[in-house]
């Protein structure tokens, strides 16, 4: 379960929904995504975002990018945040931030999970 899979969670959520009703399973799925997103964000072989960004709770953090905090406030449009992680070149052509989605460093689902996590910062 290291890697968050949207489809899997949807199916699980639906099945759970049958038993518990709506609402709770959605919350549950989201919190799983946040957890998975955090793992991906910190994992050196995956996001390795700490090599450039300061994130609360991280160690050995880089100073190349801006600290990631108050993301909801800075990115009220979640889609924009998703795009920034998926391919930062769209916003800044010369960025040194790797194009995580476009270069398949992270899958679409994984970028989604990272964004869920960022929204809690």
């Amino acid at each position: 379960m290291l890697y968050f899979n949207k489809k899997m969670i949807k199916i699980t959520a639906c099945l759970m929904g049958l038993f518990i009703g709506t609402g709770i399973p959605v919350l549950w799925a989201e919190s799983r995504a946040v957890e998975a997103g955090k793992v991906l964000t910190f994992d050196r072989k995956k996001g390795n975002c700490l090599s450039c960004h300061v994130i609360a709770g991280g160690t050995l953090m880089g100073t190349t990018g801006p600290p990631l905090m108050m993301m909801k406030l800075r990115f009220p449009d979640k889609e924009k945040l998703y795009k920034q992680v998926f391919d930062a070149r769209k916003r800044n052509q010369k960025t040194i931030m790797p194009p995580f989605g476009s270069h398949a460093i992270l899958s679409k689902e994984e970028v989604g999970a990272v964004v869920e996590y960022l929204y809690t910062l």
Partner: protein
Amino acid sequence: MRSLIVNKKTNLGFALYCLLAFSGFAGADAEQGLDYQSMVQRDINDFKAYYKTRFPKIEFSEYKNGVYAIDADSREQWLEMEDFPPYEFAVDEGEALFAVRFANGKTYADCFANGGEGIRQNYPYFDNKKGQVISLELAINDCRETNGEQPLAYKKGPMAALSAYMASTSAGNVFAVAVANKEAYQAYLEGKKFFYAKRGQLNFSCADCHMLVSGQKLRADITGPALGHPTGFPVYRGKWQEMGTLHRRYAGCNKNIRAMPLPLQGRAYRNLEYFQSVMSQGLEINGPSSRK
């Protein structure tokens, strides 16, 4: 938001960096008779000026010391390491290897100018007859092969030891790599292009790490300036626990960004070394040296 990350200094640096990255390519089909060395000299001046803007307090001569020129913390540890140089053994080994006679009775000294002493600063050079860049390590193997010996591997071991010994007899000599004609300039431009090109899954150029974010932290690592990159090689690196050549390091930096490492001493890396050595003009040879 962006003002959070880039202060004025890096902004200016970035502008210069863009200028550098894109200057010169128009000259790729320049005609014979042009003064290539002075075209290259303009690049050298811009390259130096870039670091002068980034690190105004650092003396030019300091750039022979890699990242330790700009990072006071790791410099102290490094100076301690240099008290008992871990590369000394390789220099001795290289000296012994250098003296060994080939089966045909010749020695390395017969292949090189000045018996191979004090010549490190002239490498790599562009060989007009061969139409390519010749690095010191390639010349060492050329020497072996013309004398009927097997070539050595380029990554470490005896090759690194020979290179270390030849660097040590050149200590204090100043890099003097010239770009004299159109073909040489072409090779130089290829190296330059390689240096500024984005590559690998992580999409980094050498310049991204060694110019733009040089002096900043990537995780726990601080990337050193590219100015002076070749001066201290080969190096004994703590992480390797042994000696390694410049091209070994190139391959390592390529792998780190998930790019295909290229053949050591292949044309691409030799052209890159040519570009980097031209940029290091005026800096002292101080190889071999030790690194974290």
